[in-house]
């Protein structure tokens, strides 16, 4: 458990928390990007360069932008009068706490059996590419189809009725 780990963890968790408790929606989105960045750092820290950069590219570069766009399009940036939390927030919080309790409990109970530190695996991007084209070609194709479908679907869902009927 190096210092770096704790730093990144602090950053990530702080970002996540902020993105969930802040009042202003846009602030939440920005905090979310902080959390994403933290996770990307985690990935780099785990010697998963490719995944880390992909994380930055996809989440910070695309998803976060999408989110802020959506916020502005839905005029969600101004905070509502009657609070940002739903009426049943307490129950929700309790449930989430329960989930964390169970997960943490499980982890802590299995911690002794977990493998210790291992030497970093040397993974080049080329290997990943080979794997994508070789062993994982079918998932790759399926994901391609899925993305296309999602693209079309998102466009159609968000499109205007006028355009739709035209």
């Amino acid at each position, binding site marked *: 458990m190096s210092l770096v780990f704790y730093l990144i963890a602090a950053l990530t968790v702080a970002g996540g928390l902020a993105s969930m408790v802040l009042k*202003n929606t*846009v*602030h939440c989105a*920005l905090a979310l*990007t902080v959390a994403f960045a933290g996770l990307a750092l985690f990935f780099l820290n785990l010697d998963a*360069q*490719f995944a880390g*950069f*992909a994380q*930055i*590219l996809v989440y*910070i*570069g*695309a998803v*976060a*932008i999408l989110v*802020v*766009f959506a916020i*502005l*399009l839905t*005029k969600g*940036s101004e905070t509502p009068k009657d609070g940002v939390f739903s009426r049943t927030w307490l129950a929700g919080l309790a449930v989430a706490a329960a989930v964390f309790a169970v997960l943490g409990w499980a982890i802590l109970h299995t911690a002794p059996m977990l493998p210790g530190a291992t030497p970093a695996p040397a993974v*080049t*991007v*080329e290997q990943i590419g080979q794997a994508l084209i070789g062993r994982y070609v079918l998932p790759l194709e399926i994901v391609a189809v899925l993305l296309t479908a999602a693209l079309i679907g998102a466009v159609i869902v968000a499109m*205007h009725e006028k355009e739709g009927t035209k």
Partner: protein
Amino acid sequence: MIRNLDQIFVLLQHWLVSFLAAAWQGAAGVLINAAAIVCVFPALFAVAVWLERKGLGRMQNRLGPNRVGPYGLLQPIADGIKSLTKEDIVPLSADTVVHFLAPVLLVVTAFMGFAVLPMGRNMVLVDLDAGLLFYFAMGASTELAVFMAGWSSRNKYSLLGAMRAVAQMISYEVVLLLSSVVVVMMAGSLSLTKIVEAQNHYTWGFPHWYIFTPWGLAAFVMYAIAATAETNRSPFDLPEGESELVAGYHTEYSGFKFALFFLGEYVAMFSISGLGTTLFLGGWSAPFSFLTWVPSWIWFFSKLMLSIFVFIWMRGTLPRLRQDQLMNFAWKFVLPMCLLNLMVAAVWRFMGDGWLRWFVCSAILILAYAGMGWSELRKKHIGPRSYRYAE
């Protein structure tokens, strides 16, 4: 001697580092390199600004800056001092924190890109295996900074400018990526140094730069277009269209923050031209085999400045597009061409050597270009602008 001249900066760094204990040398070396980058490019920025103002002046039949120093050479310094000493105004209703963070983030991410650019033989800050991916990841995060700037300053012009900028950047980022993927396919690596190495061969004295292949040329053209749009340069400078929205997302910025935006824009320009140079123009390799004795970094920077000049030239020449034209162009013309170019590259790769592949690939590209352009022209309808953000 020549060899030393070529490697002079590397040697310099090694010499500096050698004073430290071995344990610190690695980190120190990185620090020195970073410091070098952070010093060199602002200097280049000053030069470029001067060049731009002079050059534009020439193109528009005026003198340009000519008061401060000979030929106004000291103009950038004067500007710098001015912007440093100006008052930093923050709108009352602005979101202070975000408003402050935006320019910083912009500049930082803009500088990050240089970390993986090989500026000369053995002159790269970190030679990442996924360098190109890293570059694009960084480029993607600048959009966020732009959005923060526009949104935080509570000003409809800023917001509109930011939205335009972000939409435009996202659209053209796709093009940017796809046009570079071709190079990756050919070089078989995401590492920029490897890509340069792959282009650093000569036949009959001519280099194997990717721009000298049909797909490479097409990809380079599209890359250039996308780069212009990414950096919000004319003719794609709607986000700062003075005539429409005062100064785009940095309307509400003044003093040093504004200078940061200015710097960020130029640095982004440098880095994106640097990437283009690396991908298509053979990076630091010499244009002719008999010129290889010239130090590699000279080549890199001269290519860089050349492309900057092209930027300036275009700004001096071309009128500004309209938002819907911009988007249609990106999604309906450039993107399909990029995809086609991928196919062409694959064809090229699998047809093996010989003149035939030259013919086939160029034929496909030219035909596609002509056909699409023709159809675009045929169904060109002059009408009211038809783009929409929010209802």
